[in-house]
């Protein structure tokens, strides 16, 4: 069926029949070059995995399961990564919780509410968030945003003093550079990608479903809940996962605003650390076992983001295929 749909005279001539012998050498060389460029993607991914794990192997073999302890002290050659893994999860979670409702609301605004000629400038503006380089977010974050946030953190902390759960989460602000500041900036940075992916998913909802809902007398909100949401749920989960992957791997902004303190604490306003940030900040002075440990953190990060991306792309593709088939 797919061969009929993709009628391709040259390919059929090339694969079989007498014409195959007459295909010029240049034509075949070009095909090989193109295929090599395509396969390069797979080669690079494999090389990343092999070369970085080779450089990190001494950390993995000497530390063993101790890599999952919280003891990180280059002076004593103990490299436990738990506090960085914790920080990565916490900051990415904050970013997702803050960014996803805004992104999905904006995706709905763009697809279902505003007319198309207004949607374009709005998309440009949202995409500007992605044009601001990571390091500029970090610079602004540490010099302008964090000092400003510190006042807010202090007043929130005094407000929740003594309240059981809230005190544990929002008490004791140390400075403006913290898990929460990092999560906020990551949220700004992943909003464009989550918005545009959600918008793509929502745009595939068949017009007939939406018109059907309206014909039954639904308001726009009811139409979104009844027709758009069931259709795009899966795809939006994929978009959120891709945003999560981005948030976990984002390096420079995090390195500048997270506070650089390897601790595991429930206080969101406390200075912390995450995996990409510690690599960026400490790699310059590292050698030997220390360097192996930092590259090893990179390997962990690579594995985590690859797994998240594989799942996310799988989810997006499956939901897209299901709806195309239906």
């Amino acid at each position, binding site marked *: 069926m797919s061969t009929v749909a993709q*009628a391709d005279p040259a390919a059929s001539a090339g694969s079989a029949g007498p014409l195959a012998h007459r295909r010029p050498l240049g034509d075949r060389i070009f095909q090989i070059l193109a*295929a090599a*460029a395509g396969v390069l993607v797979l080669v690079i*991914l494999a*090389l990343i995995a092999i070369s970085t794990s080779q450089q990190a192997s001494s950390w993995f073999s000497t530390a063993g399961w101790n890599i999952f302890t919280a003891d990180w002290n280059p002076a004593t050659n103990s490299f436990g990564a738990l506090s960085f893994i914790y920080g990565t999860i916490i900051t990415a979670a904050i970013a997702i919780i803050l960014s996803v409702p805004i992104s999905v609301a904006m995706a709905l605004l763009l697809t279902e509410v505003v007319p198309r000629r207004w949607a374009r400038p709005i998309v440009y503006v949202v995409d500007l968030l992605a044009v601001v380089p990571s390091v500029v977010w970090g610079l602004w974050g540490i010099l302008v945003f964090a000092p400003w946030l510190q006042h807010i953190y202090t007043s929130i902390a005094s407000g929740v003093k003594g309240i059981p759960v809230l005190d544990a989460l929002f008490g004791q602000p140390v400075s403006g550079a913290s898990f929460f500041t990092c999560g906020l900036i990551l949220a700004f940075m992943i909003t464009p990608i989550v918005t545009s992916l959600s918008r793509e998913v929502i745009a595939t909802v068949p017009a007939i479903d939406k018109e059907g809902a309206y014909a039954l007398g639904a*308001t726009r*909100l009811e139409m979104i809940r009844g027709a758009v949401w069931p259709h795009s749920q899966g795809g939006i989960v994929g978009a959120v996962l891709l945003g999560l992957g981005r948030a976990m791997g984002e390096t420079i902004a995090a390195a*500048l605003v997270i506070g650089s303190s390897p601790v595991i604490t429930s206080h969101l306003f406390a200075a912390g650390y995450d995996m990409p940030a510690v690599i960026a900040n400490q790699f310059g002075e590292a050698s030997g076992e220390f360097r192996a440990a930092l*590259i090893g953190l*990179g390997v962990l990060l690579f594995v985590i983001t690859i797994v998240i991306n594989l799942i996310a792309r799988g989810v997006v593709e499956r939901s897209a295929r299901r709806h195309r088939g239906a």
Partner: protein
Amino acid sequence: MAATEQPAVDLREPAGWRRTKNQIATVAMVLAFGIVLIPLGFVLFTVIAKGASAINWSFLTGGPIPPNVVPAGIGGMGPAVVGTLLITGLAAVIAVPLGVLGAIYVNEYGGRGPLARVVRFMADVMTGVPSIVMGLFIFSIWVLHFGYSGLAGAFALACLMLPVVIRSSEEMLKLVPDPLREASYALGATKSRVTLTVVLPAAIGGIVSGALLAIARAAGETAPLLFTILTVTATNANVFNGANTALSTQIFTNATQPYLGAQSRAWGAALTLIAIAFILMIVARIVTARFTRYSN
């Protein structure tokens, strides 16, 4: 006529709570956009306000980059501007042709075959690899053997750009209508000739604009450069040999300094970097507007 007494059907807009809820939802969506504008406006305003006072001609061209303690106004970011342009340019020279070739394979040759599908899927996955991992990768595979250089930085940026260029170019090739290819085959052209002289020119506008956007993103990247170019303070016009420098890594090292001169240089460099990204983006829009023949 009067025999069938119809109950009065209310065909007006839904009233009451349902209508209110709908309005609340609409307001919330507009509000979401407003919330996004706040940090964007805040960051752009700060960078322009603080950067504009730092930037002048000698800032952009002068060098070497002074030590952190030196107050603003002395020396310049010239070496970093040169480094950013050279390294990003070299990365584009490496990644764009390979990316376009890869897209040609995926769309023109591979089609729905298993290898093309794997390449397409893994290119998507590769866009999600953190930029710092690319830096570590090039450090392990290149810098450890051949030392720090602009070329190493360009390799790291090229690794980030490659999957983006493949995917954006593929989307553009997909838009070229099949009858164009078939007409060309009918004249007896080989597949490579059809691709290079018919399909590629038809899609070139979109491909160039996608590539420019990828370059704009790469120009602002810091993490892949940290361990590959080693951020020096003097101009190194030889990208193939010796440590180099870039605007992004200069911002990173200056941002954490307590000295006002260093901070001012960081703001100036930030504005320069954003200006470069914006110029590339605007050129991409112009290219899209002028040379796009087929679009969805």
